């Protein structure tokens, strides 16, 4: 095949469903639009082919005419979702509606764009009995309504899964409902306050122009009463929240920002009312309504940004394994049940790549377990019948059967989770700059108002009250109240687009100040999975080893494939007579040559001539370059009885770890390594990343991690970065807890920040963005305080009137708004 031919083939052979190139597909006649020509459509995988068939059959092939489509191969799990029909599942997640239909909310994996919305909402056409499916695109959540008599939930779930949207039960619907009502109420308040503020300002405009050009007293009186009519409902309905907040502050004897706001609103309204009735003096109604509106908007923005990040984190939380495969009495058939329904004594089957649902004992099978998320251990642990195993570990080998001893809260995982919850309760609150300032601010404003009143009382008692009220209104912390939330919500929004989910502004502020950062090792600083670290041996051996390893699902076999299979080796070899010895290795015949791959002991027992002659030039053990290689699991390769190659497998350090740590150190941060892995491995990884010896700590169990963080917190806020269940308690306790991509749910649930993209480079972006956000907040605060100083000075000297106040207030808010919006807090370019 010439190069031109190859290029054409690559561009033409595209999957009819997802549009990706078809691997090894025959080049058909060039078709610009996939799946439109008369020729047989091609598919990149069986998942895509299935969905294509379903959509054609259901009359939904309009899907393929949509401009924007999901460009991903369909990956369905193929699960039966039997547990969805279980009674305990129904009690937990399904609600019965008034009309007798059933309803349930799911999170869907793989929802990306408008085409997903189209497809998911048409699922009722494919499943009879399902009456409605409504997708919330932003939250990736679908609300399904179905007739329990004609269709089962599991078949609905299976259809969604087949289409590539794996459903997960949505937890916490009750909390969601309360939040939703709260959001709607806040929105209603803003709407009313906004409408009233605009109309009051129109009336005020008439009054101000009346001052300049002269207005008949009758009209002036009319507009005053009109303003009073408008401001009263604004104060009673939307403005009520400030009075409630102020009252709470008074009762707890704390200085809250709501206090001066409530005083300003109350005093402004009372004075305006008095002046309206006696038909003389300024009214402050436009200022009062504008205040209410702007302050409510600030609060709403703040809440909204925090919700969005919280929603995303919750989505990830819901992705945990919610079912287990229980063996029926006879031990042949299996049945899916929700994890919540597991009881001690049950027999459970755990297939490769599945997470163990409970603590227990292995009864049958032999496999390698990945404990990384639970303990931080980077090496796989081999288990066989009789071994004690724990929930939350991942089966990386072959099928296992286990007896449940402790499930749910009783399990070791459950205990660690409780610890994490307790840690979150003990967490010292981070006091944000604005919160700290507000106390001072409240005192200063109240003192200034009192001083103004006292001084003017002596000079001219008729003006004293007006001046004091003008001061209260003009210094009302409108811009100040907006300063932090605006900057933070803009920053959180930008960060989310870069794959950084932040739960609150306080975390950003704390991150911006250099301090101690504890890093977990496995999965955080390192990749968290086994990979080929070093190889020594002839090139041609690779081909033979690969052919052999294709027969194994062992993690090491896959690690070989990942490194050597790209680009695919020319002319694939085929292995015959492959024998797998658990705990040892693989042997077989490839192209007539006997190939043995496995542990040094296993290989040397089968190799008669250890490196003596043959094609391989294997240096004697010990003197090789691998002698100084990173610690890991050694694997030897023998061909025709001669040991020709050695490989070392281990947990590779992430590519960007070194640069990111150097960046942090250069900016005054103090990174430490805190791991549950073997101290020797931790020390070697630490040394290669320039950690001082006393900055590395290995063998730390979850409780010890928590204790270390707690101790360090006494000297100042601590940041904890981790991915596992074993980090959850420490993450919950640290001032700022950061969960990294691929981490356990427990860790996500307790983290303030979640990095959805792998690597520590994102952490650098986060810290840099936090520092920029803090700078924006500071600038905003300086702006608003400056405006307030000018306003206060004018009010105290008696130079102010409601017109100046009405101009100053929105001007200061607008400055802060623009400054926040224009700020480049989180950007990819560095």
């Amino acid at each position, binding site marked *: 095949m010439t190069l031109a031919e190859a290029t054409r083939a690559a561009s033409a052979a595209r999957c009819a469903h997802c549009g990706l190139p078809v691997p090894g597909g025959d080049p058909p006649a060039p078709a610009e639009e996939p799946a*439109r020509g008369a020729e047989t459509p091609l598919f990149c995988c069986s998942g895509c082919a299935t969905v294509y068939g379903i959509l054609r059959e*259901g009359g939904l092939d*309009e899907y393929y*005419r949509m401009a924007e489509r999901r460009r991903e191969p369909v990956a369905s799990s193929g699960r039966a979702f039997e547990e969805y029909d279980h009674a305990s599942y129904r009690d937990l997640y399904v609600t019965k509606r008034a009309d007798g239909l059933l309803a349930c909310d799911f999170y869907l994996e793989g929802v990306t764009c*408008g085409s997903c*919305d*189209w497809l998911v*909402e048409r699922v009722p056409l494919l499943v009879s009995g399902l009456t409605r499916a409504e997708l919330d695109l*932003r939250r990736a959540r679908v609300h399904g309504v179905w007739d329990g008599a004609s269709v089962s939930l599991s078949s609905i779930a299976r259809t969604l899964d087949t289409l590539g949207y794996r459903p997960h039960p949505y937890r916490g619907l009750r909390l969601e409902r309360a939040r939703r009502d709260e959001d709607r109420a806040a929105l209603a308040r803003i709407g009313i306050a906004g409408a009233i503020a605009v109309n009051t300002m129109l009336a005020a405009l008439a009054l101000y122009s009346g001052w300049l050009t002269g207005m008949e007293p009758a*009209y002036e009186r009319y507009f005053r009463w009109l303003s009073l009519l408008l401001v009263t409902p604004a104060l009673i309905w939307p403005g009520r929240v400030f009075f409630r907040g102020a009252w709470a502050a008074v009762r707890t004897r704390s200085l809250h920002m709501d206090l001066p706001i409530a005083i300003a609103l109350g005093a402004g309204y009372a004075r305006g009312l008095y002046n309206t009735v006696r038909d003389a003096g300024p009214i402050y109604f436009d200022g009062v309504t504008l205040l209410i509106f702007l302050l409510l908007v600030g609060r709403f923005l703040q809440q909204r940004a925090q919700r969005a990040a919280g929603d995303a984190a919750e989505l990830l939380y819901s992705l945990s394994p919610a079912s287990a495969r229980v063996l029926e009495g006879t031990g042949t058939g299996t049945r899916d049940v929700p994890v919540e329904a597991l009881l001690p004594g049950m027999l459970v089957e755990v297939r490769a790549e599945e997470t163990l649902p409970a603590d227990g004992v292995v009864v049958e099978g032999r496999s390698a377990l990945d404990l990384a998320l639970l303990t931080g251990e980077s090496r796989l642990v081999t288990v066989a019948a009789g071994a004690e195993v724990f929930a939350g570990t991942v089966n990386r080998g072959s099928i296992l059967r286990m007896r449940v001893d402790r499930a749910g809260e009783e399990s070791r995982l459950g205990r660690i989770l409780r610890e994490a919850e307790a840690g979150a309760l003990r967490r010292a609150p981070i006091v944000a700059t604005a919160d700290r300032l507000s106390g001072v601010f409240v005192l200063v404003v109240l003192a200034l108002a009192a001083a103004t009143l006292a001084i003017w009382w002596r000079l001219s008692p008729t003006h004293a009250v007006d001046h004091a009220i003008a001061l209260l209104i003009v210094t009302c912390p409108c811009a100040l109240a907006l300063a932090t939330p605006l900057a933070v919500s803009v920053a959180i929004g930008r960060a989310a687009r870069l794959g950084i989910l932040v739960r609150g502004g306080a975390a950003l502020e704390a991150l911006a100040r250099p301090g101690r950062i504890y890093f977990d090792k496995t999965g955080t600083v390192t990749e968290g999975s086994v990979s080929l670290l070093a190889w020594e041996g002839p090139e041609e051996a690779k081909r033979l080893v690969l052919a052999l390893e294709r027969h194994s699902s062992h993690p090491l076999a896959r690690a070989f494939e990942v490194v050597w299979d790209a680009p695919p080796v020319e002319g694939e070899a085929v292995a015959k007579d492959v024998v797998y010895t658990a705990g040892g290795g693989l042997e077989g015949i490839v192209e007539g040559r006997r190939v043995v791959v496995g542990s040094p002991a296993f290989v040397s027992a089968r190799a008669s001539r250890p490196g003596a002659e043959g094609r391989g030039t294997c240096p004697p053990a010990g003197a090789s370059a691998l002698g100084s290689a990173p610690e890991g699991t050694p694997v030897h390769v023998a061909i025709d009885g001669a040991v020709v190659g050695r490989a070392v497998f281990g947990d590779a350090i992430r590519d960007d770890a070194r640069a990111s740590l150097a960046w942090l150190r250069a900016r005054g941060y103090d990174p430490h390594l805190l791991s549950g892995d073997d101290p020797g491995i931790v020390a070697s990884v630490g040394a290669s990343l320039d950690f001082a010896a006393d900055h590395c700590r290995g063998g730390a169990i979850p409780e010890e991690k928590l204790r270390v963080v707690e101790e360090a917190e006494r000297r100042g806020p601590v940041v904890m970065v981790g991915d596992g269940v074993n980090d959850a308690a420490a993450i919950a306790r640290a001032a700022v807890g950061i969960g990294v991509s691929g981490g356990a749910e427990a860790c996500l649930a307790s983290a303030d920040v979640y990095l959805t993209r792998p690597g520590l480079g994102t952490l650098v972006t986060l810290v840099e963005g936090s520092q920029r956000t803090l700078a924006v907040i500071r600038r905003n605060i300086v702006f608003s305080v400056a405006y307030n100083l000018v306003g206060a000075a004018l009010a105290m000297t008696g130079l102010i009137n409601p017109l100046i106040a009405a101009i100053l207030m929105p001007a200061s808010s607008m400055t802060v708004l623009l400054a926040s919006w224009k700020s480049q807090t989180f950007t990819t370019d560095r």
Partner: protein
Amino acid sequence: MSVIYIVIPLALIVVGVAVAAFLWAAKRGQFDDLETPAVRALHEDAPAKPAKENHDRS
């Protein structure tokens, strides 16, 4: 000028209607999800009546 005695109350009534409409919409959850409906409007037909025949098939 005395027309403002009538016009302004009328305008306020209109505002009142608008606010009531907004409250009704907010209570019914019209503002809960601001993204999906924007996309949904671009889809050609309602879920109730799917295109049974693909006209592009040649």
